[in-house]
């Protein structure tokens, strides 16, 4: 009998029942936030149901919170509906006895930053959240995926979820990354290679030396973007990097149980003789820093490349879509990527709002200044990240360089709060989606790594970090 993949092992360890080709899985950790839960709690109330495992549920306020004035609590929220939404979460979690990190709690922040840094995210778990970027937690060797609000209600009531089994896809990252080629570049290059629907129906296991070489932050960035390739989840086998990250965090196993836990986690790897449904190889040595030019994360170019022409795409439907994207983005086919001027910069999000990301941005920005006419925002992924960046002097470096130093939240990644682009404004962004209107109606988003975004802030145009004067 063929061996099992990492995904198979987690799946098999959580199946409670199977029918009609679907299985009922136990959920070890349920992360919730203000935007996708009000209707779920309302559903529970109207059917007289309660929350089965409040102790396995953790709530944060992130998607729709202001990134200034959080010390004032909900009073910091100017918009009436937004304030009501957060108050609704507060009363729902209080009634259910669910732990909640509210505004101005230093433990609060973007849900996919908070879970790992609190040690709640652990190898071998099944983790769900009403947010597509739940794939982030796969970096720890957990099966983690986004769900809708009806499923949130189902998990609250039963601590389980029905799932069809995904195909096993392995993406091997071979070769070594050149200087300034970061996890974000690996993610965008991978999506460019397989397409935004390329992993539909699959759970991707990321493997290869280049993955082993990534820090936990880098692995989270990569797994985070799995959904942009259409995958159900992305996953990396846990190793010493994972275990050492987890030691000593508030939710991690107590010292007396640590060896037992690490032994348990060590079984979560893909067997040598396991067979994948799809195998893909990405040559990391060929990747240059990546920038998106269009309105889908698959629309990528190397920073030293050019904006493509619709005629390069043989398929007429694809050509039409490229034409539409270029029109929306206000770009001319054939122009060098580095000629693209930007007015806004956003450094943050569940993709790139962690301490390493801010270290990179500060390293680039140190001793320099944001270009005239550019507004650059740094939004730490959590209160902990913010405090650490302040302690390390990164905040001071960034502030002195002319960046705005904000409070944690999803902010301009999805622009539900007041942090958004004005029409036709162009942004160098470390977030995950460059969809039309994603950062504000008629706003134009170019995705890239934190170092590249910081360099763009300094020069006022997209800049090749490799030849940026040091």
């Amino acid at each position, binding site marked *: 009998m063929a061996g099992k993949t990492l995904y198979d092992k987690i799946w098999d360890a959580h199946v*409670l*029942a199977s*029918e*009609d*080709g679907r299985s009922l899985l*136990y959920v070890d950790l349920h992360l919730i936030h203000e*935007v*996708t839960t*009000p*209707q779920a709690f*309302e559903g529970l109330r109207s059917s007289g149901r309660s929350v089965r495992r409040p102790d396995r*549920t*953790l709530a944060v306020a992130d998607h*729709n919170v202001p990134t200034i004035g959080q010390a004032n609590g909900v009073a910091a929220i100017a918009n009436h509906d*937004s304030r009501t939404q957060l108050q609704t979460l507060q009363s729902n979690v209080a009634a259910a*006895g669910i*732990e909640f990190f509210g505004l101005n709690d230093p433990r609060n922040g973007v849900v996919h930053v908070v879970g790992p840094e609190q*040690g*709640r995210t652990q190898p071998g778990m099944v983790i769900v959240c*009403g*947010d*597509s970027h739940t794939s982030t937690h796969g970096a720890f060797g957990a099966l983690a*995926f*986004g*769900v*809708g*609000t*009806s*499923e949130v*209600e*189902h998990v609250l*009531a*039963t601590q*389980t979820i*029905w799932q069809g089994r995904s195909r096993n896809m392995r993406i091997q990252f071979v070769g070594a990354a050149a200087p300034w080629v970061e996890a974000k570049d690996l993610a965008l290059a991978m999506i460019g290679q397989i397409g*935004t*629907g390329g992993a*539909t*129906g699959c759970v991707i296991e990321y493997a290869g030396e280049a993955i082993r070489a990534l820090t936990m932050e880098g692995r989270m960035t990569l797994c985070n973007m799995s*959904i942009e390739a*259409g995958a*159900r989840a992305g996953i990396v086998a846990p190793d010493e990097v994972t275990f050492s990250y987890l030691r000593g965090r*508030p939710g991690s196993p*107590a010292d007396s*149980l640590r060896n*037992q*836990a690490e032994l*348990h986690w060590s079984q979560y790897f893909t067997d040598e003789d396991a067979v994948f449904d799809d195998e893909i190889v990405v040559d990391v040595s060929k990747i240059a820093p990546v920038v998106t030019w269009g309105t*889908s994360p698959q629309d990528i170019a190397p920073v030293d490349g050019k904006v493509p022409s619709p005629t390069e795409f043989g398929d007429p*439907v*694809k050509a039409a879509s490229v034409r*539409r994207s270029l029109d929306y983005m206000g770009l001319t086919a054939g122009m060098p990527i580095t000629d693209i001027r930007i007015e806004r910069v956003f450094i943050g999000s569940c993709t790139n709002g962690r301490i390493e990301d801010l270290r990179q941005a500060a390293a680039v920005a140190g001793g320099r200044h944001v270009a005239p006419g550019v507004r650059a925002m740094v939004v730490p992924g959590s209160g902990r990240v913010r405090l650490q960046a302040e302690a390390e002097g990164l905040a001071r470096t960034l502030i002195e360089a002319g960046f705005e130093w904000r409070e944690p939240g999803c902010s301009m990644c*999805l622009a*539900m709060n007041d942090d958004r682009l004005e*029409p036709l404004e162009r942004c160098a962004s470390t977030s995950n*989606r460059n*969809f*039309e*209107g*994603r950062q504000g109606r008629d706003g134009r988003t170019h995705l890239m790594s934190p170092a590249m975004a910081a360099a763009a802030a300094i020069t006022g145009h997209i800049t090749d970090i490799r030849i940026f004067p040091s």
Partner: protein
Amino acid sequence: MKRVDIITGNAVPLLQANVDTDQILPKQFLRTISREGLAGALFFDWRFDETGAEIPDFILNQTPYRHASILIAGENFACGSSREHAVWALLDYGISCVIAPSFAEIFAGNAANNGLLLITLPKADVEALAAEAAGQSTDFRIDLPLQIITTPSGRELAFEFDAGTKRKLIAGLDAIGETQLHERAIAAFETQQNEALPWLSGSSAPGIAR
């Protein structure tokens, strides 16, 4: 949940690939705490300009399609965000069925949980249906129990459909109630996990009020 069996109505073709949920339901409408009242928000930035006036070029603003019940879409429809609001908005607008070469997975789960019928067909079939829908106010008929689409010209096209989802859609089942029938298995799993993985539960575990 809304029950689904036979759907009749005209169809609107929107064949662009990778239409994401940010387009189907833009973020400003995610502030709601209700499932209701999202019809006006559907494809908002494509339907309306900055002043709130209709954009005549957008297909849902054109005469035969305004009251369409069926959306014929491109591949990887509804990729991106997990927002179930996208499904609520489609249903509230009057769309009961979406036909496409492929769908994003989270959206497909959300659709099944709300009685929005999603039919996956080969790209060539989807394009042929879109061609038949063009300019038509004539009804398509979609029979879920028999898994057959009848086009305005009377052509019949069979489609494949997941048996479990079909049973659920036709019966309009209460998913949570169904799952609670598995209570013994859930409780047994929890007991076993408490013993095997003691760091996850008990007084020393996170999430317990201390």
